[in-house]
């Protein structure tokens, strides 16, 4: 599944997790899980935005960190509007196509 998923998400365009699940004949949860792993490995950059009027500025910038989804949740904790924020954040990722490169291997 992973090579086919990468073939789909490496092309310019906007896709939803539901679209990908349909194309890969799998469940949206499987695709979401794979997206999280690819983000942790650097292939994707998570850009999560809590569902709030105008968009939460604290989390509106992408985290750009490995394990970005956990870092994003921690970033929300420092937001003054975190307690009243929507419980359904919009999760999104941008393809970077840059895994840990050979030049970063010590």
């Amino acid at each position, binding site marked *: *599944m*992973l*090579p086919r998923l990468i073939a789909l*998400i*490496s*092309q*310019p*365009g*906007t*896709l*939803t*997790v*539901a679209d*990908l699940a349909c194309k890969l004949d*799998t*469940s*949206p*949860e*499987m695709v*979401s*899980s*794979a*997206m*999280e*792993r690819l983000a*942790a*490995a650097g292939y*994707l950059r998570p*850009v999560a*935005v809590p*569902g*709030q*009027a*105008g*968009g939460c*500025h604290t989390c*509106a*910038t*992408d985290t750009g960190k*490995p*394990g970005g989804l*956990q*870092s994003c949740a921690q970033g929300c904790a420092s937001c*003054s*509007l975190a307690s*009243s*924020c*929507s419980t*359904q954040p*919009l*999760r*999104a990722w*941008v*393809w*970077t196509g840059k*895994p*840990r490169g*050979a030049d970063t*291997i*010590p």
Partner: protein
Amino acid sequence: MNSAASSMTIALAGQPNVGKSTVFNTLTGLGQYVSNWPGKTCEQKTGQYYYEDVCVHVVDLPGTYSLTANSVEERITRDFIINCGPEVVVVVVDAVSLERGLYLVAELLCLPVRLVVGLNRVDQAAQQGIKVEAHVLQAALGVPVIAMTASRGEGVEGLVAAAVQVARDPEAWKPNRPGIQEDHRPVLEALIRLIADRVPESYPPEWVALKLLEGDDEVTEMMRSQLGEGWAGVHTILVQHEDAFLAVAGGRYEWIGRMVRAAVVRPKAGRVTVTDRIDRIATHPIAGLLLLLLILGGVFWMTYIIGSPLQAWLEGHVVQTAATWVRSELTALPAALNGLLAGGLITGVGTVLTLLPILIIFFLVLGVLEDVGYMARAAYVMDRFMHPMGLHGKSFLPIFLGFGCNVPAIMGTRMIEAPKARLITILVAPIVPCTARMSVMALLAPIFFGQEALWVIWGLVALTLLVMAAVGVGLHQFLLGGEQTAFIMELPLYQAPSLRTIAQGVWQRTVDFIKGAGTIILVVSVLLWALSTYPGGTIDSSFLGWFGQGLAPVGKWMGLDWQMMLALLTSFVRKENTIPTLAVLYEAGGESAGLSAALAGRLAPAAGLAFLAVQMLFIPCVATVATIRQESGSWRWTLLSILLLLVISMLVGIGIYQGAVWLGWGMN
């Protein structure tokens, strides 16, 4: 176990929010002990539970998505399992999203530890029509699987019973472990041969090799120091297979797929959720677009049909009343101070005040759409139109709102995550013809073109949108990198809006606007008043007037006199200022009927068209510029935005007039 049926240690592992802490609290009750993990600020919870004659020490590990060293929680979890060696690790997974939880199970199966899987929230899964057959999953995994509803305490004791049984009879535990994808198996085996002799005692060589291929920084550093000169061979393999992570993770997902296909029964095709039903229309390429246009039309209607009367009321009954009162009641003040108060400060503050109804309604309506979950669908539908400009669908809404006012359009770019896409949208949004510009068109076009005015206005709007698209493509290609990237979204479920959430968001953003843009608008308004008054006391003999006359040579290229050029300049404060400026300069008394008479015959149609085109594309008003500065955080990009539109508007105006001259059209 530590001694004959006396005590054992169970570690609770699992992703965040799967009910792991509920299991822990159910088992340990008030007998919990809370401290910090050694050397970490992360909380450690331990407790005890007695099952038959066994004292079970329960350790609640931090919630983790995997065992890669990307976070403190992940390091703590794997360090504890590897170095402290609990007898059993109980992995709690959510039956509603089994695929996610099984990735952690796949990782844990590579460690020398016995597992029991706690399949939690089976009740919620059943409500969604998802049936997970625990016994089938158990047979497929080769690991005990206990169905639970931890929130009701159901299945928790069975979980402990299974863990105790596994600890008592380790020989019976025969898990089905995931493997690396076949094409990379030789690579894994070669790596294991290189490192096996130097792996620290508690670490399994195969697990270490997998982590090296995954690019785990901590394991990489550990083995580099262990191997010393022997690292070179490992380094060569890792460099040659820098994408090996995909083979490792791919193998796990193939394994997860087999488990899920065996044990999970999902809803039949006829049983769909409310979200699915709505999304059949909302995300449809054609129906979704029509729905979007309908909803955006409603947003526009609410924002400006309701907001505009409020804005007009504020302008007429508050701002004008205040200015008139100052002029008539504060006559004791020096004329200059009186003029500053009425024409500078009150006008400046009034500009901020009259924008508030529009902004508040915009934020409110947008907030509702965001909170119910619709905005994600709008972004998805509009994506195909945004791509040539390097923008994704989320850029469309701010641009669309520019048809009302550019200020909320630019403020709306906060919802755009990617910095470059947000910057392009900020620079492109001011080109959209706002209602203020359209009101000037609506007044002046009939004066210049009579019954042809409607076609002229439509043509100018089309021209403006073409210029906007060209600028967007140009910025995307030449100035901001031209990168095209894939954008993947997980559409949230629809939900009822939270009034508290929306109200707080509206309040916060309204306060932000008043603090930020309002300060700049106030200062600039005072400055413009002074420049249009001094030194001579009239606009003709003011600095602004002299400046306007200095622009006459530029105006000649477009067939415009200095008064028209000055009217363009004063539109910087507010676009509508063009009208009273023209009225004053042509001594029309400020009335439209008077202005019609004053302007009639003054400009050739070609010059009139050039003026209207420049008016449409001219630099944005001071409120918009202030908001660009606020949202971009950069004077460089703010000045570029002004310069860009100044150059474009002048070139278009000159091109129209000179083209007409060349064609011999519209000169009479």
